[in-house]
């Protein structure tokens, strides 16, 4: 478990000192929105409204919110299947996200992606990827695209502590440093890949990010539950990407409160509920931030309650929206497969594309 938060030095850094009260309240609002959205999604999942998996981000909200808060027009984000937090943090609406979970045509992917596959290219959010570490070469490619076109930006590519053992990630690290691409790999280390602890899955020297040494990549580790620290370390990495076109690996400690997915039958077996309760009581990112804002007199109990109530009703309304939306038509199954077909270009009109009866 992490040491007690000691955030002084991070709050003193320019990246955080420059924050207005509104900014700080906004971070709180975003974290609370993510949590309330996911609590609602869990509720409706259990009522049988959704299919498949539901990987909840609850407990990790400060990482998505802290990092997204630094992103400008040329900065991009891409993550794995635990993607609801990142999606909301980049500005996707609860409605489109909840409707996607319900498999409705009003969903962000028209009901074609599901929980693990949220996308919003207009918000520089490139998914939502179901294959562990499959997004890591894609994140590299976003960085390649930025550099190719001479844009000053960064690609923030998130992955779990289990994903670091995939070959594609290591291939990506090699290419990232070899070609000096502005990618930032952000390991959200919640200590477990499904039911396997980090100790049982990874050979490591103190930390996972340290594997960057093998490639000469700059790396850093930090406490993921502290927005100031997340922002401070991410800012440094983003400066490195923007100014020197260099990659970074960041590793943030964090904790997922729920099982791996809602379908995790062993959720209470491979780690003790007491440890999680202890973390929640002492390190919960929302509580920690809230208390800090109380102390800084940025917001009070009432203000918080207002914002929390708003998030709850927004989440509830998103479920109503999803419920009332239509499922896609059967005829839409073969839409969005090929650009050329959807757009009925010359190429899209040539030959047979679909072979079902």
């Amino acid at each position: 478990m992490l040491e007690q938060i000691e955030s002084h030095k991070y709050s003193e850094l320019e990246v955080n000192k420059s924050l207005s009260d509104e900014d700080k309240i906004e971070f709180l609002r975003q974290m609370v929105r993510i949590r309330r959205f996911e609590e609602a999604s869990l509720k409706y999942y259990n009522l049988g409204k959704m299919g498949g998996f539901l990987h909840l981000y609850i407990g990790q909200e400060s990482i998505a919110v802290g990092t997204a808060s630094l992103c400008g027009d040329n900065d991009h984000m891409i993550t794995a299947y635990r993607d609801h937090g990142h999606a909301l943090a980049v500005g996707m609406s609860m409605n489109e996200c909840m409707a996607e979970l319900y498999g409705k045509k009003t969903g962000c992917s028209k009901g074609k992606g599901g929980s693990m596959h949220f996308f919003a290219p207009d918000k520089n959010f490139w998914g939502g990827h179901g294959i562990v570490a499959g997004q890591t070469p894609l994140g590299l490619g976003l960085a390649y695209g930025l550099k190719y076109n001479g844009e000053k930006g960064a690609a923030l590519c998130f992955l779990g502590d289990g994903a670091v053992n995939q070959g594609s990630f290591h291939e990506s690290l090699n290419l990232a440093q070899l070609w000096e691409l502005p990618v930032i790999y952000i390991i959200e280390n919640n200590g477990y890949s499904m039911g396997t602890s980090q100790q049982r899955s990874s050979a490591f020297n103190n930390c996972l990010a340290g594997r960057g040494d093998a490639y000469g990549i700059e790396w850093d580790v930090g406490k993921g539950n502290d927005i100031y620290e997340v922002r401070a370390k991410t800012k440094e990495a983003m400066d490195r990407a923007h100014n020197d076109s260099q990659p970074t690996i960041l590793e943030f400690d964090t904790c997922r409160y729920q099982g791996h997915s809602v379908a995790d039958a062993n959720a209470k077996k491979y780690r003790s509920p007491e440890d999680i309760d202890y973390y929640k009581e002492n390190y919960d990112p929302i509580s920690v931030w809230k208390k800090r804002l109380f102390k800084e007199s940025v917001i009070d109990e009432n203000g918080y309650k207002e914002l929390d109530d708003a998030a709850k009703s927004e989440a509830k309304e998103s479920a109503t929206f999803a419920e009332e939306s239509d499922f896609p038509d059967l005829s839409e199954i073969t839409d969005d497969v090929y650009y050329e077909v959807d757009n009925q270009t010359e190429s899209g009109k040539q030959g047979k594309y679909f072979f079902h009866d």
Partner: protein
Amino acid sequence: MALTLYRQALNRALDEELANDEQVVIIGEEVAEYNGAYKVTDGLWKKWGDKRVVDTPISEAGFIGMGIGASMLGVRPVMELMFFSFAYVALDQMINNAACIRYMSGGSINCPIVVRGPSNGGTSVGATHSHTPENLFANVPGLKVVAPATAHDAYGLMKSAIRDNDPVYVMENTLLYGDSAAASDLSDEEFTVPIGSAEVKKEGTDVSLIAHGRSVIVALEAAKQLGEEKGINAEVVDLRSIRPLDEETILKSVEKTNRAVLIDENKPFCGVSSQIAATIQEKAFDSLDAPVLRVTSIDAPAIYSPPLEKEQIPNVSRVVDMVQKLG
């Protein structure tokens, strides 16, 4: 008349598309300073420099995935696989990512990438280097697969592939790169061959030989022999594109000849020819005077032994024999 070789035709297509669109970038192992393992990219690095023609480490999953990611931002990478057999270490990227991202994003993202390289046996390099995965990729909605048999089509299809906004996998053939039988008289004018259009390479009346890639060259040779020695006038249909598929040209030919022999270097189980056979029986059943027969690779991993491998993949005598079995 100076004929252009298949490899030269590809080279010209790549060169012209590098000139036509600044977003086109050639990426792969040994494509730049070495001029390509098969010299398809010969001279391009010297002409276009480090930015446009990029040598990679041996990391197919890494660099193909990277190309897919870059394509989401509008770059148009043309990635070379030294052999299409090596796609197997990058399958996650080529199938889960390239083919599915458009769909899973509800059509909001597209991946205009080309992956190209040789997909063939017959060169005595053993099973690991002799796979022909056009059937495997054509099985995946979201992907396009083309397999040119001639220099003309290699040039025209490569240009179409690069301009296409969906992922296109171009299956070439090391035996065709320098084969005079696949060489073409290319016009100096730029042109494209549309993806999804088959072509009747030789008109005939008695049987349709339907093939793609180098099997087209085999079929043409077999048709010649059948005509000269057996008095059988075979038509040769070159699929050129596997997915999308030009069913019309296939069916028209079978409706004319009433017989079909499919020549396919894939292994028989769910090979490209399986799909063609299903289409013919479903849509041209009444035209058929005989069962649809196939000449595929003999159903074992690619054998090394050179004389045996020549028998394992479709060859002229196997095609001639099979046509005679039609009765």
